[in-house]
C-alpha cells in the first residue's frame, strides 16, 4: 500500500516537474489574437468540416486495416480491436473532459480547465477563437477525431504482444496526460507553443511526432516479439493493408484540408499539397526499393505514401505544391533509410514502424515546414528558411523537441505505471497462440468452413 502511494506520488511529481520545465520555455509577450470574422455559420464551411470529420473518423478503421494486414493471421483481430476501442474510448473521454483540457479556457499556457466538460457551452454557435464560421460543436467533433487517431498510431509499435487490459489503461492515460496537454500547447488559445509561433497546420507535432516518440518508447519498454526477427512471418494479407492505406489517404484530405476549417482556397491548397506529397513519397519509395532491393514493392509504395502524408501534415496549409514534392521526397528518403538500415542496427522491435514512419516522418515534416513555409500561401502563417526567415526553423525545432521530451518521458512513466498495475505484456504461451484467441476469444478467419 505504502509502495503504491509512493509510486503514484513519484509519477505525479515527475509529471508536474516535466510540465514545469516545459512551461519555462514560454515566451514572455502574449501574441494578440487574430482578427475574427463575425460568428455566422456558413453552410459551405460547415458542410466541408462535417465531412472532413467523417473522413478523419474513417482513418481509424483505415489504420486498423493498414496495421491489421501487416501482422500475422493470429493477431489480426487484436489490431482491429485496439483501433476500434480507441475510437470508442477516446471519443467518450473527449466529450467528457478531454476537449475541455485541450481547448478549454487556458490555465497558464499549459492546459485547459474543466469548464467545458460534457460539452458545457459547446453548442451550435461558432466559437470565433477557433473557427468563426462553423458551429462550435462541429469544431469539437473534428478535433475529436485527431484525439482518437493519435493514440491509435502508437499501437503499431507494440503489435502482437501487449495485453488488452494494459492497452486500454495506457491509452486512456496517454490521451489524457500526453495528448490533451500537447494539443493545448500547440492549438489551444493561450497554449505556450502556439504563442511561441510554432507552425503546425494539421498536427505534425501534436499527432505524429507525439505518437511516434511514444511508439519508440513502447517498443523499447515492451521488448521484442518472440522469435524476432527471424521467425516473424510477412504480412498475412497485403491487400487489406492496401485498403487501409487507401482509406488513410482518403481520410487525410479531411485531416489536412479540413484543418483550414473552411471550404476556401486554403483548403484547396492543403488538399493539393497533401496529395502531391503522398504521391511523390509513394513513387520515391518505389524507386528506392527498385534500386536497393531489385523490385518496387506494394508495401513500399503504401509505406512511402503514408510517410509523405505524415510529413506534409504540419505544412499542408503553409507551403506550395512544388515544396510539397520536396517534402514528400525527403520523407521517403529519410524514412526508407531509417527503416531499412538504422532500425535493424538499433535492434528494437517497432513491429509496424510506427516510429520509423510517424516519428521520423513527423520530425522531418515539422522541420520542413520551417524551411518551405511562405506567407504567400497563408498570410496567417509565417515565412520559412527559404523565404528569408531562418528563425522559423528554430521555432519548429523547439516545438519538436518539447514534444519529444515530454511525450517520451511521460510515456515511459505511464508504461511503467501500467506494467506495475496489470502487466504490459502477454505471457509467452499467449504470444505463441496469438492475441486473437487469448485476448479476445475469437479468430479472424475460420480454417475449416
Amino acid at each position, binding site marked *: 500500500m505504502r509502495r503504491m502511494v509512493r509510486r503514484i506520488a513519484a509519477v505525479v511529481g515527475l509529471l508536474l516537474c516535466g510540465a514545469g520545465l516545459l512551461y519555462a520555455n514560454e515566451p514572455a509577450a502574449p501574441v494578440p489574437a487574430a482578427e475574427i470574422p463575425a460568428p455566422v455559420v456558413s453552410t459551405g464551411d460547415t458542410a466541408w468540416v462535417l465531412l472532413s470529420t467523417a473522413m478523419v473518423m474513417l482513418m481509424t478503421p483505415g489504420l486498423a486495416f493498414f496495421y491489421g494486414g501487416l501482422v500475422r493471421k493470429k493477431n489480426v483481430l487484436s489490431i482491429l480491436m485496439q483501433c476500434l476501442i480507441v475510437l470508442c474510448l477516446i471519443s467518450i473521454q473527449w466529450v467528457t473532459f478531454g476537449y475541455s483540457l485541450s481547448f478549454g479556457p487556458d490555465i497558464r499556457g499549459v492546459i485547459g480547465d474543466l469548464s467545458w466538460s460534457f460539452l458545457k457551452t459547446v453548442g451550435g454557435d461558432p466559437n470565433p477563437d477557433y473557427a468563426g464560421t462553423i458551429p462550435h460543436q462541429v469544431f469539437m467533433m473534428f478535433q475529436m477525431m485527431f484525439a482518437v487517431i493519435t493514440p491509435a498510431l502508437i499501437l503499431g509499435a507494440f503489435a502482437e504482444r501487449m495485453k488488452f487490459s494494459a492497452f486500454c489503461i495506457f491509452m486512456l492515460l496517454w490521451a489524457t496526460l500526453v495528448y490533451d496537454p500537447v494539443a493545448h500547447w500547440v492549438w489551444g488559445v493561450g497554449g505556450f507553443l502556439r504563442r511561441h509561433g510554432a507552425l503546425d497546420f494539421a498536427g505534425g507535432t501534436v499527432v505524429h511526432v507525439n505518437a511516434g516518440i511514444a511508439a519508440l518508447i513502447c517498443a523499447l519498454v515492451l521488448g521484442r516479439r518472440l522469435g524476432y526477427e527471424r521467425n516473424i512471418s510477412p504480412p498475412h494479407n497485403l491487400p487489406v493493408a492496401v485498403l487501409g492505406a487507401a482509406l488513410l489517404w482518403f481520410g487525410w484530405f479531411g485531416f489536412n484540408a479540413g484543418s483550414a476549417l473552411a471550404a476556401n482556397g486554403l483548403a484547396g491548397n492543403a488538399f493539393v499539397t497533401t496529395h502531391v506529397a503522398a504521391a511523390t513519397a509513394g513513387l520515391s519509395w518505389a524507386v528506392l526499393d527498385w534500386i536497393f532491393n531489385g523490385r518496387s514493392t506494394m508495401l*513500399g509504395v503504401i509505406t512511402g505514401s503514408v510517410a509523405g502524408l505524415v510529413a506534409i501534415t504540419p505544412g499542408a496549409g503553409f507551403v506550395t505544391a512544388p515544396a510539397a514534392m520536396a517534402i514528400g521526397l525527403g520523407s521517403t528518403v529519410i524514412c526508407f533509410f531509417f527503416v531499412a538500415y538504422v532500425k*535493424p542496427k538499433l535492434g528494437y522491435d517497432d513491429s509496424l514502424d510506427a516510429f520509423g514512419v510517424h516519428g521520423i516522418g513527423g520530425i522531418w515534416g515539422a522541420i520542413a515546414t520551417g524551411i518551405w513555409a511562405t506567407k504567400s500561401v497563408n498570410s496567417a502563417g509565417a515565412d520559412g528558411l527559404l523565404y528569408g526567415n531562418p528563425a522559423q526553423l528554430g521555432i519548429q525545432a523547439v516545438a519538436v523537441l518539447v514534444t519529444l521530451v515530454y511525450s517520451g518521458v511521460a510515456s515511459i512513466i505511464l508504461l511503467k505505471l501500467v506494467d506495475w498495475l496489470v502487466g504490459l505484456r502477454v505471457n509467452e504461451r499467449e504470444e505463441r497462440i496469438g492475441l486473437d484467441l487469448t485476448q479476445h476469444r475469437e479468430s479472424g478467419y475460420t480454417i475449416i468452413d
Partner: protein
Amino acid sequence: MKYVIAIIQPDRLDEVLDRLSAKEIHLVTVTNVVGRGRQKGIAEVYRSHTEAGSLLKKIKLEIAVNDSFLEATIDAILSGARTGNVGDGKIFVLDLPQCIRIRTGESGSEAIG
C-alpha cells in the same frame, strides 16, 4: 491397391487432371501445400527486410488405385507435370491394404474406383 501421392507445380494441375482422365483415372483428392526442395524460391522483401522464402506453393494429389492402374497413373502424372525444371516434384507410392466407399460400405478394389 496403391496409394499414390504426388507433389506437383501449381500450374500443372489442370494438365495432370486431364491426362489422368484420359487414362480413365477420375478419382483424385487435391490439397494446397508448400514445399521445400531443390528449387530456389524468390526471396521476398518487406520494407527492405528479406525473407528466406524457401517454402514454395505446390499441389499435392492423392490417388488410390488398383495395382493394374498404377503404371497408367504414374505415366499420366509424369507426362502432365514434367516441365524439366527443378521443382517439378515427386511421386510417392504407398501400399494400400484397405479401401471403403462410405456411401455403400463396399470395400477393396471395387470401392476404389
